[in-house]
C-alpha cells in the first residue's frame, strides 16, 4: 500500500509476512560439528558442473581442490575437511534427482589446510586477477541463488557500474545468517568491498539493510574504514526486497528493464555474506569450505546460526540440533522461496542459507481451493505489478504463450507473494513456475528446429 510509504524509498506493492527472526537473530554464529561423511555434489551452483580431479581412495587435505571449474560459468570445489575420497558416484540432491558427486570420509582430527593459490593483494591485483581469484575460491551467491559470483561481477563492454550494491536485506522470514554476518564479520565485508569495487570499477558502494536489522546497520556504519566510499542505507521492511530488482528500486530508485540485468541501470548487486567470504578468502588464496546457515523453525530444538562445512548431510545436521518427534516438513532456504525436501540424505551446499523444520502442528495441509473471487490481493502484492489473477486463469487454460507474450510471465521471479495472499488458496506461483518451464522448453525446441 503506497499510502503509508511516502517519504520512504521502497518498491511498489510487496507483502509483510511474520518475520520470526527474533528466535535466532541474537545468537552468535557457532562452529558446527564435522560429519563423519560428507556428500559433495559437483553441481552446487548454476552453470556447468565442476570437473572432478581426485580419484576414489585418494587422501585429501582440507582446502585441497576436489574438482575444478567446468567452464566459465562454473566454479571449483574444495575439500571442506581432510579425509579420504570414499566414492565418486551419483549423490542425492535437493531437487530430488541424483547427480554426480563425491563422498568424502573425514579424518577424525583434521589436518593442515592446503592453500590452492597465492593470496591476492587488493591494492596490486588487477580487476581480471580479482575475478579469477573469486572463481578460484569457488565463490557463488550465498544468498541462495548460487550463481557464480565472478560472472555476475564482469561488467560487459560498453556498460558502467555506477554503484556496487551490497545486499543485506535478508527479507525471507526466519533467516538471520546475513544479519549475523553483518554483526560479526564487518571487517571481512569491508575487505570484500575493496576487491569488489576494484573488480567492477564502481566508484562507490551502498549496503542495503532492512529496518529490522538496525543494529547491523549501525555497526557497519560505525566501522566503515577511512576512505572507503561506502554508505549504509536502511529501507522499510517488506518482502521481497531482497530480490536484486527490488533492492535496486528501493535504494537507487531505478527499475531494471524487463529481461535485463542490474548492470543495465548501472548496478552490480552482491550479497553481504558472499562479500564477507571474498574478503576472507582472497587475501589468503583459500577456497570456500563452509558457510553460515540459520537452523530454525518450530520443529528445531537447538536453533541457531551455525558455520557448517559444505557437504554436511541434512540428517546429521538435524540429529545434532535435535528435532521434534512430529516433524512434518523440512525446507532448505526461507519459507517463501525455499524448497521442501523429502530426503534427508542430501547435504548442505554453497547455496543453503537456512534449514527450517516444521511439525504437524504448524503445517496446514489440503487447504480448500476456491474459485478466484477477483479480490485483487495478488495484484496489490506482486512486486513487479503483474496480474497474477488473470495469469492464473490463463494458466488453467494452458495459454502459456499468451501469458509470456501479453502478461510478462517471464519477468515473474517466483517470490510467492501472490500465493501467500490468495484467499482462494490458488497455487498461483506454482502455476507460473510450471508455465515458465513450458515456455522455456518450447523456445528451446523452436531454436533447435530452426538450427536443424
Amino acid at each position, binding site marked *: 500500500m503506497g499510502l503509508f510509504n511516502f517519504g520512504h524509498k521502497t518498491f511498489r506493492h510487496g507483502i509483510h509476512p511474520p518475520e520470526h527472526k527474533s528466535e535466532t537473530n541474537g545468537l552468535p554464529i557457532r562452529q558446527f560439528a564435522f560429519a563423519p561423511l560428507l556428500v559433495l555434489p559437483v553441481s552446487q551452483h548454476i552453470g556447468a558442473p565442476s570437473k572432478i580431479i581426485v580419484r576414489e581412495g585418494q587422501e585429501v587435505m582440507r582446502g585441497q581442490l576436489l574438482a575444478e571449474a567446468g567452464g566459465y560459468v562454473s566454479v571449483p570445489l574444495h575439500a571442506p575437511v581432510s579425509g579420504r575420497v570414499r566414492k565418486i558416484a551419483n549423490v542425492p540432491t535437493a531437487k530430488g534427482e541424483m547427480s554426480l558427486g563425491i563422498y568424502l570420509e573425514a579424518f577424525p582430527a583434521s589436518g593442515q589446510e592446503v592453500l590452492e593459490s597465492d593470496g591476492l593483494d587488493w591494492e596490486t591485483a588487477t580487476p581480471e586477477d580479482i575475478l579469477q581469484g573469486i572463481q578460484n575460491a569457488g565463490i557463488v551467491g550465498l544468498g541462495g541463488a548460487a550463481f557464480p559470483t565472478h560472472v555476475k561481477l564482469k561488467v560487459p563492454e560498453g556498460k558502467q557500474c555506477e554503484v556496487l550494491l551490497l545486499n543485506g536485506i535478508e527479507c525471507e522470514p526466519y533467516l538471520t545468517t546475513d544479519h549475523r554476518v553483518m554483526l560479526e564479520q564487518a571487517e571481512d565485508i569491508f575487505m570484500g568491498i575493496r576487491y569488489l569495487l576494484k573488480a567492477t570499477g564502481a566508484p562507490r558502494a551502498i549496503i542495503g539493510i532492512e529496518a529490522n536489522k538496525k543494529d547491523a546497520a549501525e555497526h557497519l556504519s560505525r566501522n566503515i574504514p577511512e576512505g572507503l566510499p561506502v554508505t549504509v542505507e536502511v529501507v522499510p521492511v517488506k518482502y521481497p526486497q531482497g530480490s536484486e530488482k527490488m533492492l535496486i528500486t528501493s535504494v537507487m530508485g531505478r527499475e531494471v528493464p524487463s529481461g535485463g540485468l542490474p548492470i543495465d541501470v548501472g548496478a552490480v548487486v552482491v550479497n553481504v555474506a558472499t562479500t564477507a567470504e571474498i574478503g576472507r578468502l582472497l587475501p589468503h588464496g583459500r577456497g570456500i569450505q563452509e558457510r553460515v546457515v540459520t537452523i530454525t523453525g518450530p520443529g528445531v530444538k537447538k536453533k541457531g546460526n551455525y558455520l557448517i562445512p559444505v557437504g554436511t548431510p541434512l540428517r546429521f545436521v538435524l*540429529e545434532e540440533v535435535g528435532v521434534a518427534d512430529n516433524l512434518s516438513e*523440512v525446507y532448505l532456504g526461507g519459507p517463501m522461496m525455499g524448497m*521442501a525436501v523429502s530426503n534427508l540424505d542430501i547435504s548442505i551446499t554453497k547455496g543453503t542459507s537456512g534449514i527450517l523444520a516444521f511439525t504437524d502442528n504448524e503445517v496446514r495441509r489440503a487447504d480448500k481451493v476456491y474459485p478466484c473471487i477477483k479480490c*485483487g490481493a495478488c495484484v496489490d502484492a506482486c512486486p513487479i505489478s503483474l496480474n497474477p489473477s488473470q495469469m492464473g486463469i490463463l494458466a488453467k487454460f494452458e495459454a502459456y504463450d499468451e501469458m509470456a507474450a501479453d502478461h510478462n510471465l517471464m*519477468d515473474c521471479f517466483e517470490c510467492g507473494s501472490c500465493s501467500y495472499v490468495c484467499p482462494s488458496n490458488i497455487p498461483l506461483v506454482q502455476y507460473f513456475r510450471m508455465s515458465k518451464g513450458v515456455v522455456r522448453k518450447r523456445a528451446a525446441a523452436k531454436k533447435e528446429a530452426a538450427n536443424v
Partner: protein
Amino acid sequence: MFKQTLHISTSPHLKLGVSTDDIMRNVVWAMLPASAFAVYAFGLSVFLLLVTSVVAAILTEHLLCRWSGKESTVNDWSAAITGLLLGLTLPPAFPLWMAFVGSVIAIALGKFAFGGLGYNTFNPALVGRAVLQAAFPAAITTWHPAFLEGRFTDIASSTLALPFMEPTYDAVSGATPLSAFKFDGVAADSADLALGLVSGSAGETCALLIVLGGIYLIARNMMNWRIPVSILLTVYVLSGIMHWVDAEAYPSPVFMLFSGGLMLGAVFMATDMVASPLTAKGVVVYGVLIGLLVVVIRLWGGLPEGVMYAILLANAVSPHIDSALQNRVYGTNKKAKAV
C-alpha cells in the same frame, strides 16, 4: 529418530491464512448490526423477510449445485450474503413470496448462470432486485412506517400475501426521504437519516450501523476501502456543488449521503469483489462512476433512487475499466493486457 515420512509441498510455505470463506463469513457478520436494526425498526415482518431471502438463496444454490452434479458450495457463505443483501434492499412489508422469487433469481440468474462464485458479472443480489423491480413495481415502492406499535407481534398483511395475488397494505406510510424530497420537496432531518429513524428499505435506513460494518471489514482487510470512499466522496462533492448552485432545487450533500440505499450500496454492494475491478486505480474509477450515476439518476432522473442501477452499470463496465487501467509492469512501459 526420523521414522516419520517428510511431506513435500511447493513454496511459499507460509500463507496469510485468510480464506475466501473467512471473508464471506465476515461480510455476513458485518451486515448483522444493520440487519438487527432493521428487525428492531420494522419488527417481525422484516425478520421473516430476511429469513426468507437468506433461506431461499442458500436453498437455490444448494439445489442448483446438486442438479448440475457439482459439490454444494453453500459452505463458502457467498449465497448467504446474496440472500441477506437482497432482503435488506426490499421494503419492510414486501410480500415474502416475492422475496423468495427474488432470491431464487439472484442466485440462479445472477450467479449460477455465469458460472457460480467468482464468475458473476453483476452483484447477484442486485440482479434479483432489478428483476423484482421490473416484475412488482408497486410492491417494491410501497413503504412501511418504522417503529410502529405492535411491530414485534403483528405481521404486516402484505408480508403474508399469497403468491400471484395482489397484496393488501394495511399502513401505507407514504414516502421515503428520497421520494418525499423528489416529489414533495421535503428534506428529512440529517440526524434522523444517520440514525435510521426514517422509512425506507429494510436495511438501508441506519447509515451509522452500515458504516460500522464497513469499517470492521476494512480493518480486517476484507474490503477494498477505495470503493466506498470514492463513491461517497463523489456523491458528496457533486451534490455539494449542485446544492451550492441552487439550494432550493437540490438537496444538501449530507442528505444525499445518508438517504436511500447509498450507504448500503457503497459499503456492501459495490464492494462485491468479483464484480468490481482488480487494480487500485480501477476501483477508484469504478467508485467515481457509481457516485456520478447515483447523483445523475437522483437529481435528474425519473426515479427517486439510483443506487441499484448505478452499481449494475458500473459492474457491467468493470472489465473494461480493468483492461484500461492495468498496472504498469515493472521494468517496462507497457501494461499487461487484460483478458
